[in-house]
């Protein structure tokens, strides 16, 4: 399902389009075409709306806070009062990237493993059962993962079974569960990529006497590499933008530290947490939402554009 988001249509598939001669009815046809185009345009308006909203308030924000202070200072306390208030976004970006990294440490090997298994090893019957299970995992609302991280994974697994003395709100639990959250994305996109590798490549390798693991790791994997990179980038983009797991399980302040046993907060969780406080429009706290939102939007946009490029590449090669 995740992979299909990036389907690039194949213009050649429909062949030359048959056109009717112009008749009286064609005015109606033109109106319909116009209406349909209008609907398609709505998505462009959505993007415009997002960009305009973000930029407008962000500019106001930078009228109050110098852009250099925002990007490079390491004190972050936008909701504090008076002297304590500080707008250095570095800790927030650090916590965001750090939690994402922890998630990816879990999600990349496990997701790729699941993807490889489904594409190369599973028999059609096993595949038919396992694919929906993976999709089921992908369809569970993220608040459920947050609940699981806070009420089970942190106290029972990390504190009791493994015995690491983490705080109630900590980066370790949130990061690992974040990884489980993006695992299906990585698994399903990478599986699509590997399934698109033509059978002849595998047969050629087998014919040369390669063992199965060699065929998979040295022939199929490299052949599907652009799709696999796309899977990883998409997974990273999803992890960076995740809100609720972090909000529920990781706590409410970012931390410029490698220590995972303490609270962390990512940009999305900051936005949601600040908006929850029902800040009044026009206040500096309200504008901070947009400045952080712009930062997040730009980061995910770059990742998505990279992913789209890579997906295009592998589709062009094998379709």
């Amino acid at each position: 399902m995740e992979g299909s988001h990036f389907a690039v249509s194949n213009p050649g598939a429909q062949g030359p389009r048959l056109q009717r001669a112009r008749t009286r009815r064609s005015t109606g046809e033109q109106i319909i075409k116009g209406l349909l185009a209008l609907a398609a345009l709505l998505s462009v308006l959505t993007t415009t709306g997002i960009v305009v909203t973000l930029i407008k308030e962000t500019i106001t924000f930078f009228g109050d806070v110098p852009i250099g202070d925002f990007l490079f200072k390491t004190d972050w306390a936008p909701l504090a009062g008076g002297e304590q208030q500080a707008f250095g976004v570095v800790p927030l970006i650090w916590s965001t990237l750090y939690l994402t990294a922890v998630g990816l440490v879990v999600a990349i090997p496990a997701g790729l493993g699941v993807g490889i298994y489904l594409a190369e090893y599973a028999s059609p019957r096993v595949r038919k059962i396992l694919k929906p299970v993976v999709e089921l995992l992908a369809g569970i609302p993220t608040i459920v993962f947050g609940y699981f991280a806070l009420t089970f994974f942190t106290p029972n697994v990390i504190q009791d079974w493994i015995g690491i003395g983490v705080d109630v709100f900590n980066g370790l639990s949130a990061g690992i569960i974040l990884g489980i959250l993006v695992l299906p994305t990585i698994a399903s996109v990478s599986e699509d990529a590997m399934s698109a590798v033509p059978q002849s490549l595998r047969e050629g390798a087998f014919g040369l006497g390669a063992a199965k693991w060699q065929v998979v790791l040295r022939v199929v994997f490299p052949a599907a590499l652009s799709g696999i990179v796309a899977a990883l980038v998409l997974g990273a983009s999803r992890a960076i933008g995740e809100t609720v797991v972090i909000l529920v399980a990781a706590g409410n302040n970012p931390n410029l530290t490698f220590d995972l046993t303490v609270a962390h907060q990512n940009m999305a969780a900051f936005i949601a947490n600040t908006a929850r406080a029902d800040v009044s429009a026009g206040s500096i706290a309200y504008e901070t939402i947009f400045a952080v939102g712009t930062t997040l939007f730009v980061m995910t946009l770059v990742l998505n554009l990279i992913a789209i490029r890579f997906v295009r590449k592998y589709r062009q090669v094998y379709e």
Partner: protein
Amino acid sequence: MSATAAEAQIARRTVERAASGERWRDAAFRFALLLCLFVAVLFLGALLVDTFVDGVGILSWDFITSFPSRLRPEESGIQSAFIGTLWLMALCAIFIVPVGIASAVYLEEYADRDRWWNRAIEVNIQNLASVPSVVYGILGLAFIVRGPIDVFGLGKGQPTLLAGALTLGLLVLPVVIIVSREAIRAVPPSIREGSLALGATQWQTIWKQVLPGALPGIATGVILALSRAIGETAPLILVGAAAFQRFNPELDGPFSALPIQIFNNVGEPEAIFRDLAAATIIVLLAILLLMNSVAIYLRNRYESKW
């Protein structure tokens, strides 16, 4: 399985056996893959079992029909959130079905891909599909709730059901468009050519031939999109959905929803709220499971073989 595929299978098996020196590495690699799969399934299982164990004791008809209460958690229910979620789903569907299908038809059947604006629309939709949901929340907060769009009093500066539904609709619209396009593309060109050759106009061809053929795929896409919409928490937090609401939502009034109720229950300190959250999760997952079953049924029952 076709004859050639069967032969390939046999050939592969023979060759694999020939490389017997590598067999233990093969086994190790296979074991590692199975371990990954095991981890994924284990987490899924633990998550479902844990939630079920925590919440099943609270689940009852009273739980569904009572209003949530922060003061008397033992009598707390989810009625306003449940109704809110159903409303969001319905309103979202009213919005995304026509707009999503129209966009998909335009892009697949009309758009000339040599024009830059059509390609721009395509890339734009792909990008929108992976913009973080919290960013849509910002759009909903600043543009719909407090902003310039004033539909049915949406711009009163108050979080309303319509504002929430519109935000969620915009969020899942790309999913509907992308899945619908695939369904439309799967209708073979020969169907269109046949219809056009019989004198139908392009729109008649689309309306009478292409869309009916693509309908199961489109319906699946719509259901998937709706199930994503009702599971979203972050945009609703931004838009200002209420928790512990003691009355049912109206179109232009405050509203609650299941994910928001779960989120706020989790945030309460007393242990009983956790169990309330778990019970609410069970209800939400049951709705999602039902929707997905319908999608799978539609796909299997009506999928056309061309």
